[in-house]
């Protein structure tokens, strides 16, 4: 259900961007008064073709961004952002810059090997690498917080190399 709402929200966002039409200006025909019988038998005076407008407030659009790609993966023992993740960072930087009230958390993670506290520091380094990349794109430091979960919140359970690759990451998150 949530996924559906997000998908719809993204669709609205995407179409809004594409046509450069503000959502408020979308013409909706007023059909009140048309006496068409309702399929469900209700006769409350609202026509079948009526549309309830949804204004996307900040929370909703953050939810939409949460449904986009927001994970940057890292190589073993590395804090360097691989080129293929630059577009993701650019997408989020654009979104955060557009609204000075927007806050974004960048959450660093590691694979399961080694100590919890040292991994927390390594995850912090990954989060800060993404934070710096966003700052280079013009995002204000005041809007960003880089935090770490170390190895405490693996995306994928298991000790295989495939699992560990998925766990060495930074997630861009809106709250």
């Amino acid at each position, binding site marked *: 259900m949530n996924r559906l709402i997000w998908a719809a929200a993204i669709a609205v966002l995407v179409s809004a961007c594409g046509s450069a039409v503000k959502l408020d200006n979308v013409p909706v025909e007023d059909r009140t008064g048309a006496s068409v019988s309702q399929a469900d038998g209700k006769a409350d005076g609202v026509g079948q073709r009526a549309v309830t407008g949804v204004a996307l407030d900040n929370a909703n659009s953050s939810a939409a961004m949460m449904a986009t790609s927001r994970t940057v993966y890292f190589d073993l023992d590395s804090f360097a952002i691989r080129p293929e993740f630059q577009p993701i960072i650019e997408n989020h930087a654009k979104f955060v810059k557009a609204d000075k009230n927007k806050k974004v*958390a960048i*959450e660093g993670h590691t694979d399961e*090997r*080694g*100590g*919890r*506290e*040292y991994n*927390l*520091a*390594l995850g*912090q*380094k990954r989060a*800060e690498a993404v934070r710096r990349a966003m700052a280079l794109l013009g995002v204000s430091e005041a809007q960003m*917080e*880089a*935090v*770490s*979960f*170390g190895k*405490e*919140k693996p995306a994928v359970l298991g000790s295989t190399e495939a699992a560990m690759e998925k766990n060495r990451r930074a997630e861009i*998150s809106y*709250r």
Partner: protein
Amino acid sequence: MLKRRLLILLAGFACLPALAQFRVEVSGVGLTQIPVAIAAFRGEDGAPQKIAGIVQADLERSGQFRAVETGVVALDEGSRPDVSNWRQKGADALVTGSVTRLADGRYDVRMRLWDVVRGQDLGGQSYAVVAGDLRLVAHRVADFVYEKLTGDKGIFSTRIAYVTKVGPSYNLWVADADGEGAQSALNSAEPIISPSWAPNGTQIAYVSFESRKPVIFVHDIASGKRRLVANFKGSNSAPAWSADGKTLAVTLSRDGGSQLFLLDATGGEPRRLAQSSAIDTEPTFSSDGRFIYFVSDRGGAPQIYRMPSTGGNAERVTFTGTYNISPSLSADGKWLAYISRVSGVFKLHVMELSTGTTNAITDTTADENPSFSPNSRLIIYATHQAGREALMTTTLDGKIKARLARQSGDIREPDWGPVQK
């Protein structure tokens, strides 16, 4: 059918303490152990705790004692034992005692320790306690025996803290040093790491992720009152207490990077301890308070360093290997325990600080987070065994180990509490 169910139920109950308690695993030989006989305490069959069994398990876990079979004997603290008979059985010492239920419902526990080699009475103790404190009394008896026979302070009546993860649920536990009598101090749906006992034994500092980032709490375990002491921008972690309990050394990333700060234990504005462009974390105070040992990758790989606890130049402490983390110092100032990665696996190491001599003392491969017992004789640490996380205690030579595992879930992040009055 009903009867059988009852039997199974009873068997289940009988197993419970065993599952929670540390099981001793002896490896290696040549260790000097004092042979001690612990006679069943008169009247303990009618009491909620079997005192003699708890005392024996405590002493065996220390690695410094070997239990001598007593057979069925009728002795208490008032008996004059036949010392030649006990010497024939191979004992150097004998513990006798009794448990009596008092009119007010409390229990009167009395004990006496005999040197059966010299035929000497080494003294006794008596305690009147509620049923809930009988285990504590047994641990105090073990402490008394330990101190009389070794000259060192016993640590059996101390407590340990650790964290469990069962499914999506995390708990911070406070338990007796033998792993029994665990009580949950905190339950959370988010991770809890790095518990650290305050020197007074009434508070624990730890890192909680309950607000979707690591922040540091100081938690009063008797009242459950928690104080958020570090919630600065970025990550807040690795709390360590100064010996006077007034200051916490912590790792903060509020100015970018993981860096060391000092913080009043009541909170307030942190003071930067050192400045580096590298990771600095896992601070721990030396017992004399002069130094802070910590982990830094300023040389390209994580190594253990130390600096004056007021700040200043850091000197490197570990030189072997490319991954040395999680320093823990013994209270006597002689030993450093830490985790070193050797050939891709993580092992507990112990360094004698005066000589730099270092030994790996486990045969496991994912050791973490060592913590010394307050008498500097044992180390508790986390490891993986049979695919699950478990806690172990070990003697400093690695020869006597005991394992604490749970029926389900993982157990981790141990910290050994101080000796309390």
